[in-house]
């Protein structure tokens, strides 16, 4: 429903103007960012460690080397993730079963961070539909052609399931976290439109949608990620806040154990 607020305000903004201003902000201390993904479908665990920088600094995010990073599985013991390149830690030998609770431990610069994520059941990504949108966006006289994306899958009955979809154009992920739960579609064939305003593609673009089955804490992270980042309406949208992390010891970052299935469409 946030979109409604945006539209309402957009109506008013027809009479508005913009200007670039200087805002003095006291930067907070550097924080460690943990981006931990474990793709159980391809048996690939990857942890990225980086740091925050000041708002007015040029985008160059320091990667953190020399951390001890492990993932342990109750039944199988502990696996060390090796530092492949600066700040990137990987392991491809961790075997898992549906329902296993995995523990991530990162020790960096004397501080320990932990998180748990559960191996979700695999749900097949049935089909991907990319078509022209009739509802093309907001504001007076949109230019150009816009697209709708619909994903279809069958939700397994009698259990809580959480899904995440990632949209990439020519191999670059777009900043959107499409996450859904099955509270109202339990056990049903689900057709979900991945709603994004003014979705425009060029002819020849390769569109890839990745479907992930995820667990509840990861779902809550991605869901809050979408809703709390401030958006375009600082004074009238929700007070911006950090996403709901599932990592103990940090205020940002996530650990997501997920399945993966990708479908691709090339725009004519």
């Amino acid at each position: 429903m946030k979109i409604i607020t945006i539209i309402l305000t957009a109506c008013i903004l027809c009479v508005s103007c913009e200007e670039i201003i200087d805002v003095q902000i006291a930067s907070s201390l550097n924080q460690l960012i943990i981006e931990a993904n474990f793709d159980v479908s391809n048996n690939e665990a990857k942890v990225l460690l980086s740091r925050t920088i000041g708002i007015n600094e040029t985008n160059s995010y320091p990667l953190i080397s020399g951390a001890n990073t492990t993932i342990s599985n109750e039944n199988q013991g502990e696996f060390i993730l090796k530092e492949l390149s600066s700040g990137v830690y990987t392991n491809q030998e961790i075997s898992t079963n549906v329902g296993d609770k995995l523990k991530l431990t990162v020790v960096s610069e004397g501080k320990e961070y932990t998180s748990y994520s559960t191996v979700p059941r695999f749900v097949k990504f049935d089909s991907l539909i990319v078509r022209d949108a009739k509802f093309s966006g907001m504001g007076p006289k949109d230019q150009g052609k816009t697209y709708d994306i619909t994903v279809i899958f069958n939700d397994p009955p009698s259990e809580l399931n959480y899904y995440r979809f990632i949209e990439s154009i020519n191999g670059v992920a777009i900043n959107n976290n499409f996450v859904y739960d099955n509270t109202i579609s339990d056990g049903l064939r689900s057709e979900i439109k991945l709603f994004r305003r003014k979705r425009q593609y060029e002819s020849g673009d390769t569109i890839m949608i990745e479907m992930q089955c995820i667990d509840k804490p990861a779902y809550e992270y991605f869901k809050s990620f979408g809703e709390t980042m401030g958006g375009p309406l600082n004074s009238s949208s929700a007070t911006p806040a950090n996403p709901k992390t599932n990592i103990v010891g940090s205020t940002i970052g996530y650990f997501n154990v997920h399945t993966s299935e990708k479908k691709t469409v090339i725009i004519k």
Partner: protein
Amino acid sequence: MRYYFIVLSIFILLSSTEYTYSEEYVTISGTISDATTGETLIGAVVRLKELPSKGAIANKYGFYSLQLNQGEYHLSVSYVGYQKYEQKLKISSKLSLNIKLKAESTLTGEVVVVSERDNYNITSTNIGIEKISVADIETVPILFGERDIMRTLQLTPGVKSLGEGNGGMYVRGGDNSHNLIMLDEAVVYNANHLLGFFSTFNSNVIKDVTLYKGTSPAEYGGRLASVLDIRMNDGNNREYKVGGGIGIISSKLEVEGPIVKDKGSFLIAGRRTYADLVYNAIAGTDNYLYFYDINAKANYSVDDYNKIFISGYTGRDAIGMNERFGIDWGNITGTLRWNHIWSHNIFSNTSLIYSDYDYKVKILNDANEFSISSVIKNVTLKQDFEYFINTDFTLKFGLNSTYHSIIPGQVEFTEDVDINLKSLENKNGLENAIFISSIIKPSALLTLEAGFRLNFFNLLGPGIFYNYDQSGSVIDSSYFAGDQNVQSYINLEPRLNVSYILNEYNSLKIAYSRNTQNLHLISNSTSSTPTDLWIPSSQNVKPEISDQISLGYFHNLMDNTYEISLETYYKYMLNQLDLKNGAEIRSNEYIEGELLNGDGRAYGLELMIRKKFGNLTGWLGYTLSRTEKLINGINSNNWYPAKQDVTHDISLVGIYTLKENWTLSATWVYNTGNAVTYPSAKYLVNGNVQFYYTERNASRMPDYHRLDLGATYILSKGDSFESSLSFSIYNAYGRKNAYTIEFEVDPNDSNKTRAVKTYLFTFVPSITYNFKF
């Protein structure tokens, strides 16, 4: 039924004591009204030369009653803007005396009788009260030249707005939802048109506006921060009149007249905006954005002791784009009232009130359409008594019974639409209250207004009600049938105002009050949107409670020409609600599990210097204040500034009468920027730049200031035809006040981040033509 019995017993008990006085005292009572239109004059002051410390104030229906010893008196009646009425009376038995006051006139050739410069502000127990006169509303310059009660009230100390596009009114640190806004006693849930640019009240048909920001009388309850009591005109009961105005974005028309001359009258008024037509014509779009509203009222005096009123309001806003999206919302209110006078000194009013607010959002998505609609409504029965026992003792008591129903979200869609929304269960509640309050004058210098309100709230079935654990997950649920009580709360709300008169020009006042609120507004945006969600108190949501203490010093200068007041307040609020990060409030049946709970506190100092008489009138208001919240789970459980925390707030209003047909006006406002959360760092996640937030509301928007200018030229004035032209300039020096400040990746250099300020209005001129015949 028990409450009714209690109140009835009190009433019978009090009635039976009347004989004690009847031997020695006689009663003068009646109604005070305008001699030309017959409109009753709320708050007119009745005084006796022989008993300077005694007197009476006309109540909300213009009724007054005085208990006196037999004898001769010089009675006078005064009211701002009216000639003083004086009469010598010899009183030996009960007397009905209806008094008609003549409006002050400044027309050339007529004798100008200056209205009395009363010091009622010094002598009354009023503290923390703002009364806006209709004359002020008519002359204060406002955006698009649309006269507006709410925008004018926001120019007084302790009442804040958060700038353009935010219809909220924040009174002494309260939230927007903490205001009880009533039109002829009916609750108005959303007092805004067009997302806050205008209020729902058509100022042409408003008789009286009173804002209680401190201690409200015990007859009001249900909201924490303030009571805004708005009364509509009754309509001219002597002759037919048509009035109206034509402005750049809206026009309005009103018709009033007698039903039976001097006994009954009616009033009907409407207004409609047409800014979207202009905008579409210029921009070549087919969007729509408009509102209309209709006010209607009728009254009839059956005899000297019985009067019946019926009044209603309906208004609707609509916004939509190209048949893709549409939202419309509005309030409907209706009030049926019966005034009855029992034995000259007991005034009773019985009201049956209906109030409703609803919205409907429609989205056309490909060939599919879905809509969400939501309604909050109540039916209220109110019984109030005012018993004028003697000039030193007035008693008010009564009861109030309200049935609330909330339909939080009804979803309808065509087949095979893939929207993850479902309809929510309706919520019902019954709220009963009894109240008693008395005005006692133990001595000529001391006045006490003391009372209490006892409030009973019951959450009723039918429906499934959930219990939650600490983390907000559902533990269990239970089903309750339609007549079952799910949860009840009883709250006692004491109210006390004390005024001590130091001398004719100085007084000290102190007030304490407790207020409770059982309807809570859940919003994840900081501005008031039409899709706000209300929830009742429940097993998980406790009633909000506030305690406020205030202290005031009142001083008048130069024969009451200048009124100065200095008030301070401290308020503590319990059970304040906020949402968890990322909470979904739409179509979420587990919304109570998404709530966070905490406290709020607000304190401040308010200075008001008002000049009420002369060619130049107006006021200077200054507020120094702080408003903070402590919510479990936000800001590491530390106190943080609320969004409406504004340190300095200045309003300067000047109205100057130049010759007889020109009136000039100017307002200047300044306030510290409100509290916002800016990012304190940035980071990269999933390949995208994201912002990192630390402390809640630790930053400030830029300071806000603005000058508005207005001028009214009277084209013609007289009994047969009156007309005037009003000119105004909003934001005369074109200050680019920030509406939003957002951070984004610089499109010119993706390695940089920049801050973008959006501002709405610079320099908006307007012209309005008003007429009456």
